[in-house]
């Protein structure tokens, strides 16, 4: 299983991204399994210039020809394909911590994240 996290923050330049290690991968999968669905009406992922959350790509190499799962995390809401969840298990907070450890502390804090 390979999980790539993209910090969705730039407009012109490509967004920074990193790969989760085994421990982070296991933790995220555990967290995702705990989520409960929200009605779509509450979906408010208004984005724009600056911090727009995270795009997570999950690839399971053991499943042949399987398309990657794309997870969008932003401001307490998580979208996996057409399903919307409330981030009750602090996935975004964990990802923000990872981003800060990966060299984006100053940028994120300057944006109030």
């Amino acid at each position, binding site marked *: 299983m390979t999980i790539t996290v993209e910090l*969705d*923050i*730039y*407009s*012109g*330049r*490509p*967004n920074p991204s990193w790969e989760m290690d085994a421990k982070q991968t296991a933790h995220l999968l555990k967290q995702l399994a705990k989520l409960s669905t929200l009605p779509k009406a509450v979906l408010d992922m*208004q*984005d*724009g*210039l*600056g911090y*727009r959350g995270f795009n997570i790509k999950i690839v399971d190499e053991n499943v042949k020809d399987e398309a990657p799962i794309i997870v969008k995390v932003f401001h307490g809401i998580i979208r996996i394909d057409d399903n919307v969840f409330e981030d009750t298990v602090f996935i975004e907070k964990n990802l923000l911590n990872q981003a800060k450890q990966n060299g984006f502390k100053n*940028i994120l804090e*300057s*944006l109030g994240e």
Partner: protein
Amino acid sequence: MIITLDVFSGMPNPSWKLNEKDAKKFVERFASRSVLDAENMEAPLGYRGFSIETASDVKRPDTLPTKFHVGGTVADSFKAKGLKNPLLSLDEMDDATKWLLSKSDGAIKEDLMSYVKDTLKQQKKGIKEVAPTEIVEDTFLKDITAKSPCIIQSTAYNPAFWNDPAYITRNNCYAYAMNYRSNTFPQPGRRSGHPAPFPPTCANIRTAANWDGCKSTCSGGNKLVALVIWPGNDYHWYRKHSAGFWGHKPGGTAARNVDSLNRVINGTTLTPFNCARGPYSIFCSYLYSPTGMIVS
């Protein structure tokens, strides 16, 4: 849809954009017809026909390639064998080329227009053209950059073209502003081999974009674009649309015509200069992106 009159050898060919309605009309001419690309054509000096590019925000039927050639003379070496459908007849092609010229909207200078029209007449009569190139290269375009009038050819707002899930993440603000869906997350200066150094500044992003064809002064047909900077981090572009408002595309997200406070950037009270831009606090300048500019 971008039309380029293929006529010069040293200077840039004049290009213009067909609006959505005209592009649709033009495409209808090729229903159940085959088209050729430039490699199938003679390449004399002077008039060689028109290059048609659809990699912009215009809907295109799947049957048409993104780039093809119209007008000019089919090369002797071309074998029509294997074409799925017939090509346009000579009369149909003549009509199509004249129609394209009629839609050039000032992109072709008067003298050049006369030359092309004369050449088309001669070709129709079967008269071999006589040394058309001297007049083209020497007289018409020597002073194109200095004397061409400034024409702002604003483009229609077509977010659906950019927000198609197959392309949305592969194109950014630069692609949107320059109106070229390269699918490469294009960067200023990459196409011209002069990418901007880090960190992005007004000066180095503008210079890199200028290498790609963007201009600080207006001459010929252009789109009006605006450059802003997030100091030390990133750059962002806006493009003015024919309805008067401005559009933009923050990175791999959806194209829109509103600012960070969800207000329409209407082009009068709200512009790229004074709209809410998040961390992109530095407004650099307005710039001119020539019609037909390509980025990568």
